[in-house]
């Protein structure tokens, strides 16, 4: 598992560079064009971070988050989910940026290689934001009734969440 993970990124980069060179793509110029676009995406993310980090800072520093965690703790204990991770699972289907903000906070507070940090990263990435996807994708073609798709998305989220928690425990013992 470690080997696969370690080599995924370098192999991908080398493969793309070799493929580009082979197909006669001007790799350097093309890279610069793409990077400029990525820069714009990054700048567009700043307002989202401001909104979410601000809201979460208030919610956390005031003690409201601790309160919410204590409310949810019995359910988490039952399933052996650490109380820090539970809010992440609750906010995940609602808000992608909220999940990202909370995850970053946990990773920085507990350390990226700790059990909580690893679990937070896994939970944050283990599925798409159900409400966002359904709103945007169905809204685009003007379908108003999501029928059973909300249930489908939420059960998928739950399964991915529990799997992520289990895998993190399994890797880090």
């Amino acid at each position, binding site marked *: 598992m470690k080997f696969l993970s370690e080599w995924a990124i370098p192999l991908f980069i080398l493969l793309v560079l070799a493929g580009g060179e082979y197909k006669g*793509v001007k790799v350097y110029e*093309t890279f610069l064009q793409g990077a400029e676009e990525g820069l714009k*995406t990054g700048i567009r993310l700043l307002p989202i971070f401001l909104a979410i980090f601000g809201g979460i*800072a208030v919610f956390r520093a005031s003690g*409201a988050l601790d309160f919410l965690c204590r409310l949810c703790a019995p359910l988490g204990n039952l399933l052996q989910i650490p109380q820090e991770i539970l809010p992440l699972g609750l906010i995940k289907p*609602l808000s992608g940026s909220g999940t990202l903000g909370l995850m970053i906070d946990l990773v920085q507070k507990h350390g990226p290689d700790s059990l909580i940090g690893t679990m937070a*990263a896994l939970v944050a990435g283990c599925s798409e934001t159900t*409400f966002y996807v359904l709103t945007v994708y169905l809204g685009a073609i003007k*379908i108003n009734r999501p029928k059973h798709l909300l249930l489908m998305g939420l059960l998928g989220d739950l399964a991915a969440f529990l799997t992520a928690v289990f895998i993190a425990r399994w890797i880090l013992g």
Partner: protein
Amino acid sequence: MFAIINKLWLALFFLGYLVAGATGRVEETTMALLRSMEGSVKFSIGIIGFLAFWSGILRIAEEAGMTRWLGRVLHPLLARLFPRLPKGSPALGCITLSLAANLLGLSHAATPLGIKAMYELEKINPTPGEISDEIAVYLGLILGGISLIPSTIIAVRAQAGSQSPSSIIFPMFLATLVGTGVALLVHFIIKKTRKAG
């Protein structure tokens, strides 16, 4: 559905200051809010470099025709999930491309591609304005979020000083696979029971 996110954001502030007022932590809470502004900018700057580099690499992949190649490789698998779509249909092409973008962790490119796929699926929808089988299966795949390179999360881990930021790639792939499988299973079970009923 956006209303829910609006309310949630509002609740963070109002519930936060409500608890802060009740426990006498107003000053601390405001300090944390002010610090978060500086933190947001610092974090954005950290992540911009990563996003820009990654977009550059992917632009090369696109120009070299590697995304189209990935589409052809994934085609046999998709034909099984969308049996009613004819081979070489534009819907199938769009689905493949948007899934490929998701696999490579390109969520910002994935959304426009995904919406294009939705338009194509709606064009051949036997019940326009209602969810078809194909739309349900496609959204199941998107919601599952199968990802080979979760670039944002790797960037976060790297920035926080992880010993091996990318070591979560394979575990995360497994978790997304389970989530996607369960989502599709839910769809097929509901479809079966509806037909039986």
